[in-house]
Each structure stands twice: as structure tokens, then as C-alpha cells.
């Protein structure tokens, strides 16, 4: 098998082990996740309204399950094995886990899909998951007891959260700009043109497919022309 040619047995062992752990944890997560509505129904002593579910579920599944296929294909190669199993359980991937993983690999100067990238990305995403969970839990308790939740909506603070995405992705883009500025310009321009002429409301998860393909083609061409140094 060609796999063995590029992966040491030890390295192969580690990735295989991560997948085994990941699958077991994911099974646990599915069971836990599915038990939430069951417990709620038992607690309330009611059954969900089947008439409503017959109408609502096909709509939601058509939307979310299609998106899930796109997200899984787009994110898995970038997050690494451990990072993937953690990210898809804790959610908030595009706005948090993915940039955190990319930042950590970039700062540690390791590449995705190498074992070094795998461990760094997993540690970063694991830390991020813990910090997020703790902040939300502490926030819910503190704000609902001591402070009015409206404080996060106050004019003084709200703009910071309204513009968290440009702040986050601007900083991330700049880290690639120095070395790959030609590639960044091509990919961003392609994304803007798609939004302008095809669909301005296209979600990042879909747009990402187009910009990744454009960036890969442009990167390949620029590499051949020796435009990237």
C-alpha cells in the first residue's frame, strides 16, 4: 500500500490510535446528545408533537445534513484527526476551532497533516473547547445571577462582538500575507467576485469550497512559475 511508503509504522500507529479514541468518544457524544431530548421529554412528562416534527424535520435535515457533508469534507483535512473529533462535538468550528487550530500550527511552524501538526492542532482545539465551555458556563451563572445579560448588548461593548469575525480573520490573513501575499489577493478577490456576481448571502462554508479550489490552482501555477519564495 502506498500509505506505508510515506508514514512510519510508529506514526501510523499514532494516527490509528487517535481514530480509535475519536470514534469511541464520538459514539459517547452521540449517545449523550441523543439522550438530551429523551430526558427533557421524561422530565416534562410529554411526547414531542409528531405533526410538527413531520413538517419540521424534513426541512431541517435537508438544510443541515447537506451542510454537514460540505463542512466535514472542508474541515477534516485542516483540523487533523484529534482536532476533528473534538471540534465536531463542541461545535462553533468556523468561527473558533478552525482559526484556533490554524493559528497554533502557524505559530508553532508545523504543517497540517503531519504528526507535529496533528498534536499541536489537537492541543489548541482542546484548550479552546475547555475555555469556551468554562466561559459560557461561568457567564450563564454570573450574568443570570449578578449582572443583566443585556450588558453584552450595551452600545459600549456590542461593536466589539459584532465585529469579532473581521478582527479574527484579518489577523489570521495577515499571518499568511507576508509570505503568500499574491495567493491571498487572488483568493480573496475570487471570493469577493463570487459574492458580487453569484450570491452575496453565500455562507462561508460554501464559499470556502470555491476559494480553496481557486487558491490551490493559483498556488500550483505560482509555484510552477516560481512566483512564491
Amino acid at each position, binding site marked *: 500500500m502506498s500509505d506505508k511508503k510515506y508514514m512510519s509504522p510508529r506514526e501510523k500507529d499514532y494516527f490509528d490510535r487517535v481514530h480509535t479514541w475519536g470514534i469511541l468518544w464520538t459514539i459517547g457524544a452521540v449517545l449523550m446528545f441523543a439522550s438530551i431530548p429523551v*430526558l427533557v421529554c421524561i422530565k416534562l412528562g410529554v411526547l414531542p408533537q409528531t405533526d410538527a*416534527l413531520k413538517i419540521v424535520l424534513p426541512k431541517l435535515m435537508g438544510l443541515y445534513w447537506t451542510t454537514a457533508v460540505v463542512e466535514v469534507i472542508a474541515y*477534516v483535512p485542516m483540523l487533523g484527526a484529534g482536532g476533528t473529533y473534538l471540534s465536531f462535538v463542541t461545535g462553533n468550528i*468556523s468561527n473558533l476551532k478552525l482559526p484556533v487550530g490554524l493559528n497554533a500550527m502557524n505559530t508553532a511552524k508545523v504543517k497540517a497533516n503531519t504528526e507535529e501538526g496533528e498534536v499541536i492542532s489537537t492541543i489548541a482545539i482542546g484548550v479552546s473547547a475547555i475555555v469556551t465551555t468554562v466561559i459560557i458556563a461561568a457567564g450563564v451563572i454570573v450574568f443570570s445571577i449578578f449582572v443583566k445579560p443585556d450588558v453584552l448588548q450595551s452600545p459600549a461593548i456590542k461593536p*466589539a462582538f459584532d465585529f469579532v469575525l473581521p478582527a479574527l*480573520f484579518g489577523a489570521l490573513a495577515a499571518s499568511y500575507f507576508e509570505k503568500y501575499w499574491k495567493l491571498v489577493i487572488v483568493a480573496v478577490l475570487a471570493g469577493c467576485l463570487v*459574492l458580487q456576481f453569484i450570491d452575496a*448571502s453565500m455562507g462561508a462554508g460554501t*464559499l470556502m469550497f470555491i476559494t480553496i479550489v481557486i487558491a490551490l490552482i493559483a498556488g500550483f501555477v505560482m509555484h510552477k512559475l516560481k512566483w512564491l519564495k
Partner: protein
Amino acid sequence: MTGDFKSDGIMFAIAAAVIVFVIVQSVFFIVKSWKRAKELGISETTLKNTVTSSALFTVAPAFSILATVFALANSLGIVLPWIRLSVIGNLAYETTAAQTTLDFWGISLSKAVTDPQQFATITVAMTVGAIAPLLMIPFVCKFLQKKVGNAVQKSSAKSTGLSLGDVISASAFIGIVSAFVAREINGMTVASTNAVDELGNNVLDAAGEIVKVKNITGSAGVVSILVLICAMIFMTLISFICKKFKLTKLEPFAMPIAMFAAMAMAILFMNVLPEAITGMTWYEIGAEV
């Protein structure tokens, strides 16, 4: 039954179980990765920097998620949004799932859900909608990761200097980041809501279905681009300072610092610049599409 059923002891116990699961799973993977990193010869300093930098990087988006928990709390109580945004969820999915279900009864997400059966139905709908990736991952993760990993390693092994593998890896990253950057430059967000008449009642079509309208709820504009540029300038500046003065300890914090500084600039822009500028967006907020 009153609205208390959404935030009673059992609901908090379910939330606690979810939190414990997420934390234990994360700690498990961190410990395993840490041990492997040491075997690979990655320095303790690099690992500690990864932890600190990632924690700092997470703070602002986590507060942003917290704000969305409160946004949904008015209708669903505080605990269900808290649980849903701690596992799998994100704002767009949860809001859409809840509103789509409430549409069945013609209720808006801005009003509190007081019927236990409606609440239970919403919980089921949110769960079934969001569970898809968890069912897929065990079957495809290994395959996707191996295919891409081998392609990258194969091309890296053949070259010296800036290999095609390096370029492919960087291109994929840049492709992802560019999608988000492009949306901040020229994108908009659209939400589907119920059409209402002058009295605020839902409009029904001939078949008795609630008529839906799509409205623009967010748009790129002057401020999003200014914040984007500020973040890029801050990041470049901090990286330059780190290199120039050999501040290697500051390097891992460059990204979170740049992000916080750009968020501070957003507050400044929105409070100092005239409304004619801050309100300048490329697509009219509230307009139907």
C-alpha cells in the same frame, strides 16, 4: 405549567453532564497529544505557548457565543441554548432550528415558549438537525485525513526549499481564510422570518401555510473593512516588532493581541465616527431579498 420548567434543577443537571463530557474529552485528547508531542521532540515551551495562545485567542469569540446564548434565552430559557451552544451548535443553526419549529405553531422566537410539549418538540428538532456531522465523522474522518495527508507528504518528500506540499498546505489554509475575509468585504447575511400584517399577525397563503420573507440582517460595509484592515495592520506590526527585537516570547500572542486591538478599534469606530459612515453598508439592513 410556568416557564420555570426550562430552567429547573434537572435542566441544570443535564447541562452539567454535557459540560463534564466536553471537558473530560478535551483533557483526554490534550494529554494524549502532549505525550506524543514530547516523543516527537516538540519543546515544552512550544506546547505551553500553544496552550496560552489558544486560550487567549478563544476568549473573545467565546463571549460572542455567550451573547448568543442570551439572545435565545428569552424564548427557550437559559439552559437549552447553553447546552446546544456547548455541543455541536452555533448561533445560525440553533436560531433557525428553533424558529422553523416555532413556525409550526405560528410563534416568534422573540416570545417565551410556555408549553412543555412545544419545548420538547423544539429540543428534538434541534437535536436531529445538528447530529448529522457526528454520525458521519466516524466513517469518513480516517479516509479524508489519510488521503490528504499522504498527498501533502508525498509532494513534500520530492522537493527542497518551498515544496509543492508547503504551497498546497498554505493554499488550503488561505482558501479557508479568504472565504471569511471576502464575506467581511462584500457579503451579507439573510434570515427568513414570518410575513406579518399591519396588526402583527402571521400572513397565511391559500394553503394555510405561513408566508415567509427573507430579510437582510447583516452586511459588509465600511466598518467591517476598517476592522479587517486594522487587524491586518496590528498583526503585521506585532510580528515585525517580534522579529526586529527578537521577542520570541511575544510571538504566540501576536494573533490574540491583534484581534483584541482590532475589536477595540471597532468600539472606537462605532462610537466616534459619524453615523453616515458607520451605517454605510453595501446591502440595506432590513430590506427584503
